[in-house]
């Protein structure tokens, strides 16, 4: 077998770290085994103590933000997580989970499949990330000035901006109501307030809050960064995605629609 040297391919000689570094988590080894952790610390707080004395939403906030939240922040985060706990059985990511379930996919794979779809730029994690960027960039502008240029009309949903637009040709009443609940909480901040005003300005155009926009505003008010938005949105929706997928997992394949020949039309040019 030939062995050719490739003089045009050269190592860049970069220095790589000898070990990864993290600010998030400290693992103290057990005395007799350096591979086993005997104590774990999240941003300095021992996990045992967090288990004993803190709510899940507080520890979740700590993990991603580095400090424990104020009570009002924990309340807002927990309320947001409840609001987003299930995208519903008609959402694309949920339908992917249900497809996997009814199709006898290995159960451990149902959630990753759904989360891959939930990362999308339409009503998914990528839209949350974009909406956080939009909100952060426009917070200093009066909301009324934001919608100077109308969203281009076309088939399907319209977007005035990431996180704001129409669904099925109308204004999503659930997203609007949940945003109102969150914006009225003591932990809410300027992004939810701005979004409320902006959505009101959009309503005459047949658009308003979308779920990713609500999540983006709340996450920004809680101090989360744009880079965290997509993944957090996926985590928040994971319970509903998994529940719907597992509900289908034990059912026969005939329990979901399968279009017959009359309703599956192969078009030819």
């Amino acid at each position: 077998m030939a062995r050719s040297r490739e003089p045009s391919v050269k190592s860049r000689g970069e220095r790589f770290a000898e070990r990864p570094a993290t600010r998030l988590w400290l693992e103290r080894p057990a005395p007799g085994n350096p591979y086993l952790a005997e104590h774990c610390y999240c941003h300095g707080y021992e996990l045992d103590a967090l288990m004993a004395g803190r709510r899940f939403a507080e520890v979740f906030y700590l993990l991603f933000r580095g400090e424990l939240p104020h009570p009002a922040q924990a309340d807002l985060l927990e309320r947001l997580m409840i609001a987003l706990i299930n995208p519903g059985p008609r959402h694309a990511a949920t339908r992917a989970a249900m497809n996997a379930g009814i199709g006898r996919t290995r159960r451990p794979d149902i959630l990753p499949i759904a989360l891959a779809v939930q990362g999308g730029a339409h009503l998914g994690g990528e839209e949350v990330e974009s909406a956080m960027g939009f909100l952060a960039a426009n917070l200093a502008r009066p909301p009324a000035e934001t919608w100077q240029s109308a969203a281009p009309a076309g088939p399907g949903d319209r977007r005035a901006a990431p996180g704001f637009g129409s669904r099925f040709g109308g204004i999503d009443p659930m997203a609007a109501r949940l945003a109102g609940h969150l914006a009225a909480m003591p932990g809410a901040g300027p992004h939810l307030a701005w979004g409320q005003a902006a959505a009101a300005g959009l309503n005459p155009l047949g658009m308003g809050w979308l779920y990713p926009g609500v999540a983006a505003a709340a996450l920004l008010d809680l101090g989360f960064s744009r880079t965290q938005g997509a993944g957090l949105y996926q985590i928040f929706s994971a319970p509903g995605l998994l529940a719907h997928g597992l509900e289908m997992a034990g059912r026969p394949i005939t329990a979901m629609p399968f279009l017959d020949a009359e309703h599956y039309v192969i078009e030819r040019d």
Partner: protein
Amino acid sequence: MSSNGTDPDVDDTACWDARRGIFRTRKGGWVIGEAVYNHGYSMMDDLVGHCSFFQVLLLNVTGRLPERRLADWLEATFICLSWPDPRIWCNQVGALAGSARTSPAAAVAAGCLAADSRLYGPGVLEAATAFIVAALDRQRAGWTAERIVADALARLPGQGRPVLVGYARPIATGDERVAAMARVAHELGCPDGPHLQLAWSIDAVLGRDHGEGINLAGYVAAFLSDQGYRGHEIARIYSAWVNSGVHACYAEARDRPADTFLPMRCDDVEYCGIPPRPLPTGC
């Protein structure tokens, strides 16, 4: 706490210590400025331009570089699972991903993951291989195909439909892919080995007595068992079996307006749970 033989308070971690910070591989890898090695071959010198993708896939999975015609046969089996039909569950995941505007990589990965199923796709291959390998052992012990089928059906839970892994498929009976692959194998000059000969016998018994027949997974399992591949190797080879069909369904949905793939009204879902009720107050 397990002892290391010298100190009862110290665990024996030699297995992990020997691997800490160093990776020893028999597969190959990149020697910068020299070559990319793959099981002793220089990929750019020995494989690129000389071997097909599917030869290299088999090499990567098993460590053995097969002859070209086996790789061509394998490629044909991949075409068999490349249907651009979003009604198929894994393909529908791809269509939904396109409708939700994910990346193509996310869509195809999710679709391939969905096909790791006990119903269809590569998820059935290991069980199908175990079935035909055990069946051949029995045939060599004197069992007839009829007895093998009767025994397997008697072991089925619930005594429902005669669904043996590799010998039935959802939605329809019969399998047009098997006939196509038998033709391809013949054209490539690949004779039927003992596993596949037995598989045809089982197919004949099931068809005669139960109206079922061999499916593509059953055919692939038998054919590759004759070629010396084992069940876990076959499952690995086919892990991305459906990727091309998922691509098609993703692409079509991605090129259409977002969230318009088979849109559903609220009442397109039948709710059969507890009717809306007030939340209890207090503890």
